[in-house]
Structures are given as structure tokens and as C-alpha cells.
């Protein structure tokens, strides 16, 4: 039986009986909602079916044996605010602080605004020198899940918070809003970056973008849309201004066009992969990477095998200097954003060989009225025995899967 592992292979859930299984169900539900819900519904509205999906839920269909891990990388430093500022210091000041999510809506949440699936919090001393920068790529769903699953898991949530913040006095009351719901913007998450809180930095967004970007698209003339910008505008997944979303969508759509089957690697998550240490200088010549501590998840010498979801950059007190005394490219570190600019984030997907089955059929853009669609222009070489024929039970859920 397929099991979705907890993000970054974290072991917290092992402390509560049945919690890992529940998490696996939760991720399965994400797939069902985004892939077989949103994605399939859109296909069906164009007269297509699930045979036109190439992204799949590994709980529904075994991972194809030929599958290889492919990654998409991008920088943790957002670029979507670049045009709001004509000055880097102002931009970094903005990025380092929590902001109103929707500037036009005075009632919208105040949140960390960092939107590349990596958020950070800067701690300063009384001299305004940086003593610590905390980075997180932990999805909010992981914490939501602990809050809403059971009393035991709720206790676990408090315990995880206590461990991460090193504040043993935290209680569940500190983590809820006035309605008693779990509050992403509670004091401790705000101050310690326990998990991501920018409303779109979620596992749901990740599964949604991967699921929906795998759908092939054509314009009104019936011509295939194959470029990153065209795809994200047509498919309306993610945020075009980010680095990550158009790039992820571009990669997934390309795999679909090549008739490959795609699923997100297990454990599902978005991960910090590595840090570029070129040009860092510390006051005493200590290697700057000595002060980088991966707290949750794991770091590998090969970035595509790293699963970092929490890391801290801080200098031990014994050194008698601070993070702000360290230079990157000759500049003293005055902002967490300077470090974020050196961190890469990745998403990994498992991609099969091209399959000897008809190519998925394309549809028009999301939100447009269905129009008459041409037959697929290209079909991969036909084969008497297709890769999937004879295995109709691959998808083992109750849903209709079309004629695949």
C-alpha cells in the first residue's frame, strides 16, 4: 500500500499512533482535490477525460518503473516585488518584514511576504545587528494537520512549537485565533518562522500547480501553447511574477507534451537545496558555512537530494561577532534577504520515459468558453502493446478514469 511520507521525512508524526497514515490520506486528498477535482473537471468541461492527464497520484497508480527524479530550482529571494522599489535596501527592508498581503485590502492578513516557498525571520540585538536568521520551507498544512486531526496530534503541535522555539511555556491557546481555529499568524510563528504563512506558500499550491500545469493547452487557433508565460497565463495556475511558479509549470507541461507520466516525489514538499557560499567572508576567517545549521529536514552534498525545511544562520556567542559582521561580496549582512539570495529552493518530480500511447489531448485556456478543438496533431509511434495496455487497474480509486 502506498504511503505518503511526511514532508522532509520528518519524524514528529511517529509519536502519535496512526498519524502518519492520516497524513498519507491527507496528501492523497490533496491530489484528489487538485488533480482529479480541479484538473479533471476542467478537462471534462472540454470533452476530455483523465486519459489526458499525465500527472498522477502515486496512491492511485503505481509509479512507473522507468521514472527518474527531475528537479526545478530557483532562488529563495523573491523577484515579484522588484518593480515596487528603485533601491535594493528598501526592497530588502520590505522583504525582511511582515507586510499586508493585499495592499489594496486593509483587512487582509499581515504576513511574511516572501513568496518563493522559503520564508525567513531576522533576529537583531540591541545594536540592530543581525544575530540570527531563521529560514523555513515547512508547509502550513503540516501544522494545520496536527491541530485538526486529534487531541493527541494537537498536543504534538504544541510540543513541536515548544521544541522549535525553545519556549516550554507555549500552550494551545497561544496558537489559536479568537474563534479557536489554528492561527498561521500566531505570535510564535510570526517570530520564529515555525512554518510558512504567506497564503500561497502551501502544499496545496504545489500540488495544484503541478496537477494543472500538466494539462496541454492550445490557443484559439488550435496552436499549442508551450512557453512558460503562455502556459501560466492560459492555465491560470500560480503567480506569473514569481520565479518558481512559471518555471515549475513549464517543466511539468514539457514532460506531459513528451508523453511522460509525472508525480511529485515522496515526500511531497518544497525544499531548500543548497547555499552558494562563494564570496562570503567572516571576520576571523572561519568558513561562513560553519554557521549554517539545518534544524529540520536534511542536507545532502547533492542539492537535488536535500530536504531542508528549517535552517538557521547564526554565529555562536563565543565568536564575539555577529551575522552582520560577515560579508557577502564585500557587503556586510544587513538583511536576511541577502542570505536568501544565496539559497536555492527546489521541487522534485518523478518522470517516466515517454509512453507509447496517444498523446494527451489539449484544451483551451482556463476560464474561456470551450470551442471546437482539433484532434491532437502528433501521436507517438503506435505500438501493438502500449505501456499501459493490459494494466487497467493501475488507478485503483473509485473514480472514472476514462479509457486509459
Amino acid at each position, binding site marked *: 500500500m502506498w504511503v505518503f511520507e511526511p514532508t522532509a521525512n520528518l519524524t514528529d508524526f511517529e509519536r502519535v499512533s496512526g498519524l502518519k497514515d492520516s497524513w498519507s490520506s491527507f496528501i492523497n486528498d490533496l491530489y484528489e482535490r487538485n488533480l482529479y477535482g480541479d484538473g479533471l473537471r476542467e478537462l471534462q468541461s472540454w470533452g476530455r477525460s483523465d486519459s489526458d492527464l499525465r500527472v498522477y497520484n502515486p496512491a492511485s497508480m503505481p509509479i512507473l518503473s522507468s521514472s527518474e527524479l527531475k528537479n526545478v530550482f530557483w532562488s529563495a529571494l523573491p523577484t515579484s516585488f522588484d518593480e515596487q522599489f528603485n533601491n535594493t535596501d528598501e526592497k530588502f527592508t520590505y522583504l525582511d518584514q511582515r507586510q499586508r498581503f493585499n495592499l489594496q485590502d486593509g483587512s487582509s492578513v499581515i504576513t511574511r511576504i516572501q513568496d518563493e516557498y522559503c520564508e525567513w525571520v531576522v533576529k537583531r540585538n540591541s545594536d540592530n545587528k543581525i544575530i540570527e536568521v531563521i529560514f523555513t520551507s515547512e508547509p502550513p498544512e503540516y501544522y494545520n494537520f496536527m491541530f485538526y486531526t486529534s487531541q493527541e496530534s494537537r498536543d504534538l503541535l504544541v510540543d513541536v512549537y515548544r521544541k522549535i522555539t525553545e519556549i516550554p511555556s507555549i500552550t494551545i491557546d497561544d496558537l489559536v485565533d479568537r474563534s479557536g481555529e489554528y492561527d498561521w499568524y500566531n505570535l510564535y510563528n510570526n517570530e520564529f518562522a515555525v512554518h510558512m504563512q504567506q497564503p500561497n506558500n502551501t502544499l496545496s499550491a504545489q500540488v495544484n500547480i503541478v496537477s494543472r500545469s500538466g494539462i496541454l493547452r492550445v490557443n484559439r487557433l488550435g496552436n499549442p501553447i508551450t512557453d*512558460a508565460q503562455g502556459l501560466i497565463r492560459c492555465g491560470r495556475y500560480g503567480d506569473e511574477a514569481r520565479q518558481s*511558479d512559471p518555471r515549475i509549470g513549464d517543466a511539468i507541461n514539457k514532460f506531459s507534451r513528451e508523453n511522460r507520466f509525472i508525480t511529485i516525489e515522496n515526500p511531497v514538499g518544497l525544499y531548500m537545496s543548497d547555499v552558494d557560499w562563494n*564570496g562570503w*567572508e567572516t571576520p576571523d576567517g572561519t568558513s561562513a558555512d560553519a554557521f549554517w545549521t539545518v534544524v529540520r529536514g536534511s542536507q545532502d552534498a547533492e*542539492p537535488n537530494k536535500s530536504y531542508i525545511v528549517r535552517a538557521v544562520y547564526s554565529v555562536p556567542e563565543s565568536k564575539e561577532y555577529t551575522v552582520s559582521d560577515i560579508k557577502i561580496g564585500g557587503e556586510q549582512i544587513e538583511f536576511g534577504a541577502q542570505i536568501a539570495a544565496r539559497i536555492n529552493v527546489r521541487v522534485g518530480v518523478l518522470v517516466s520515459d515517454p509512453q507509447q500511447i496517444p498523446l494527451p489531448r489539449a484544451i483551451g485556456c482556463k476560464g474561456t468558453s470551450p470551442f471546437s478543438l482539433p484532434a491532437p496533431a502528433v501521436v507517438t509511434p503506435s505500438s501493438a502493446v502500449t505501456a499501459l495496455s493490459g494494466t487497467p487497474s493501475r488507478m485503483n480509486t473509485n473514480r472514472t478514469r476514462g479509457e486509459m
Partner: protein
Amino acid sequence: MLEEPVLNLDDIQGNVLPGFKKDSQHFLFLQIVDPEPARLWLKSLAPRLWTAREVLAAHSMWKAMRLKLGHEPDNLDFLFLNCAISAQGLAKLGVPGIEEFDDQAFKLGLEERAASIGDPPRGSGEPGAPEKWMFGAGFHRPDVLLILATDDLDWAVRTEEELITSAEQQGLQLIHVDRGRVRPGKLAGHEHFGFKDGISHPAIRGRRSTAPDDFIEPRTWPENSTFDIYRSRFAAPGRPLVWPGHFLFGYLRQKGDEPESSRPNSEPPGPAWAVNGSFLVYRRLSQNVQGFRTFLTEVSETLRQNGFDPDLTPERLGALLVGRWASGWPVMRDPNVDRGEQELGENYFTFTEATTVSLPNDPYPLNLPDPNGLICPFAAHIRKVNPRDDATDIGSKEKTFQKLLLRRGITFGPEIDQPQAERGLLFVAFQTSIVNQFEFLMNDWVNEANKPHAEGGVDPIISAVRNTKISLVNGTNSFELPIPGGWVVATGGEYMFVPGIRFFTDIL
């Protein structure tokens, strides 16, 4: 489509736009030892500095004569002169407002930034580390750069001597001279590893006058409507149209990921006197030609022996690493055959998508789609520094327009028949953000194995990363090619500013 701005060609220095394009270019690096006479001397240079309009006119005249004569004119030459000043130099001259530049790289200078763009760290003692440079580090950081260019080497040498004598009498001291010279005969335009260089340049958006089509960069697409898909984004095959604010202060930059549009109020931040100026990156790069050639010979032999490709030649291996054959012909258009120098089609290709429409009189195969780096490796130099239609780690291909540079480099040093002599490239590039253009290309793409393409490998030609690997694919065969690196080593340089001519007359 927004109207393209009229550029002030009477103020912009001519090497920024359109570039000197002369066979000899001498770079004189000076330090200011006595600021007041130095200021007066620099001010006195103003009438001698060639403007963009003058250099454009000179080029036009030269081309007209070549057309008339049927060969290059023997007795028509010009001696162009331009001047750049470093942040340190501006400070010594007491020029106010340097802090209004946003670009920390310019303000700190190349030496401070060298390690972050991949050079060995300061103090490491390794080749390429700043303490090994001929100039640009420690007490040898330049304040002023004079660029003089002509086809006549003797004229360049005489002028160089005159300028040095004059400058040293008035508060400046020469610290270094680089004499660039194009390679002889048919190798002109080729860098020392043998590859034709300077093929792919962005085209600056802008007009010479208020006439609607008086574009500085000619639009050369055939009139056939088949090519209409390219006109709004490209001046010519492979020449993306880039808003002038990415190269010149005082002008607008691109709006988001829309290359056709400029963004209101997006002039690059800087002092008022920076208008019509540009940041200049100067890197003196020494090339180990023999080492590179030996590598190609030995490794191609290995790859033939191990069955990767029984027909692999050193030339083809080199082409895979660069992305072009030595002639400049793109691997994307012919992965197995060097078609020789073909100016018409050498820049007409894409990477991800197929090109489907032939240019008139271009008989050679068009490129097939290569979204997986199977025809042209992701690590190939030209795919690293200009990924064209590839989506990248920063998003869609439209964002790449903002990362491009105006390159004006030239080779230096004798041919390989003098094996002990030094040779290489004097890399010169103009932009309005060293951080977001030159340094971005070096940090994020050249030296990063996972950017702009995941798991693509570092740039095997210019990356300073040693002992790395890149993937080569031949049909169903793939090979992880070890790249020892180190064939290109920095030996000096500086980040400088090339102001408009009015800076010399009105500000100094």
C-alpha cells in the same frame, strides 16, 4: 507597443553605443594622485571623446567606402577615444552623489566582488585570486580608464604615449595598459580558443531622431509576413530588443515579463549626472589555449574509444562545450557539421522550440526543438549566458531580456606559435546594473550547476569552478564528462562608469 525613446547620441560615449569595433583597442588604466589637476585634465578630454553619433557616422562612412571599393578601405581610419571612471576615482575627484547609485557592486569594485563571481578567494594565492592580478586589486585599483581604438596599431601606440605623457604631467599615474588586438587574417573575430565571438548581441531599443522608424539598431527581418511573429521582440535574428534603461542611465527599463513594454518611472537609480552613462565591467581573462586543446584531443579520443561517439572529433567536442562550432555556426542548427562562417543564419536559432521558417537565402537546416539539452548541452557556454527561449530559474524567457549585456571585448596576446606568451580576452561589457546583469550571469548561471537549467552543469568554458562534470548525450548514450576547468583565469579588472560627455564639461 510603446514608442521607442530618442537616445541622446551626442552625449552617450561611442563605445557604449554602437561600440568601437576596431582592430586595435588599448585600455589605459590610471590612478589619480593629485585630484585637482587630474580633474582639469579629464575635463579637457571632453572634446576628444567620441560620441555615439560620431562613431555611428564613422562606421557608416567606413561601410560606404567598403561598398564603393569592393574591399576594406586602406586609408580611412579613425582613432576613437572614450573614458571611464571607477567609484574610487569619482570619490577622489570629489564628485557628489555616488551613493545615489543603487549598485553595490560598482560602489565596492571588482576586487571585493571577485570571490562571489567565482574567482578564488582573496588571499588564497590561487591563480585568478585578486592578489595574483596584474592590476585591479590592493594598491593597483584603477581610477580612470582610457579606451582608444583604431585599425592602425602604430597610431594607437603613438596616441597612447601622448595620452600617458599628458596625463602623468597632470595628476594621474599609469598603472597598467592592455593592448587588445583582433587575431590575424581569417581568425579576426575569433577568440583564442578558436571560436568566433561577438555574434549574439542584444539590440538596444531607441531612435536617433523623432522620426518614427529612425531606429539606431536596424530592423532587418525580411518583409514577408511570416516573420511578423519576431518583429516586436527582435531587431534581427537572435537579436532581442532590449529597453535602453538596461544599458543607459536616464532611460526606461522593461515592464515585468513583457519585453514589448517599458515601465513608467523605471529609470535606473543614480545621480542626475549619470544620465546617458553606463556601467562598464572590465575583466582581463587569460586563456590556456594549449591546455584547452589538449583536453579536447584527449577527451574526444576517450569518448571515441568508450563507444560514446565513434566519430567524435576534438572540434565537435569543443562545439558542444561552446554551443557553436569554431566558425560560429550554431550546434543547434547542425550538431554534426560545421557549415563555416555564415553570417546570415549563424544567429537564427532557438533552443527549446523548433524554428520553422527559413530566412531567404539560408539553405541550411533549421534547429529542432531541444528542451532537454540533447542537441546543445545545457552547460554549453552560449546556452548558459543567453538561454534565449528556454525558461529559466527566474521564470519565463521574457525575463532573460533584462539580463543581457552590451559586450565590447577584444582578444589580446600573440598566436599560439608563441607558446610561452600570454593570450586571452579583454572582456568589456556595458549595463546599468552590474549586480543584476553581469554578476547575475556569473553567479546564477555560469557558476551554478542547477541554473538556468536544473542539473545542467556549470559553464565549462568560463566558470572558475574546477573539477566538475557536465552531461553529454549522443543518441541513447550519455556520458558524465569531467571538466577540470581553469582554462580561463582572471588576471585583472575593475567595475567602472562611462559617463555622458556632459559629465566632463559640466560636472567635473
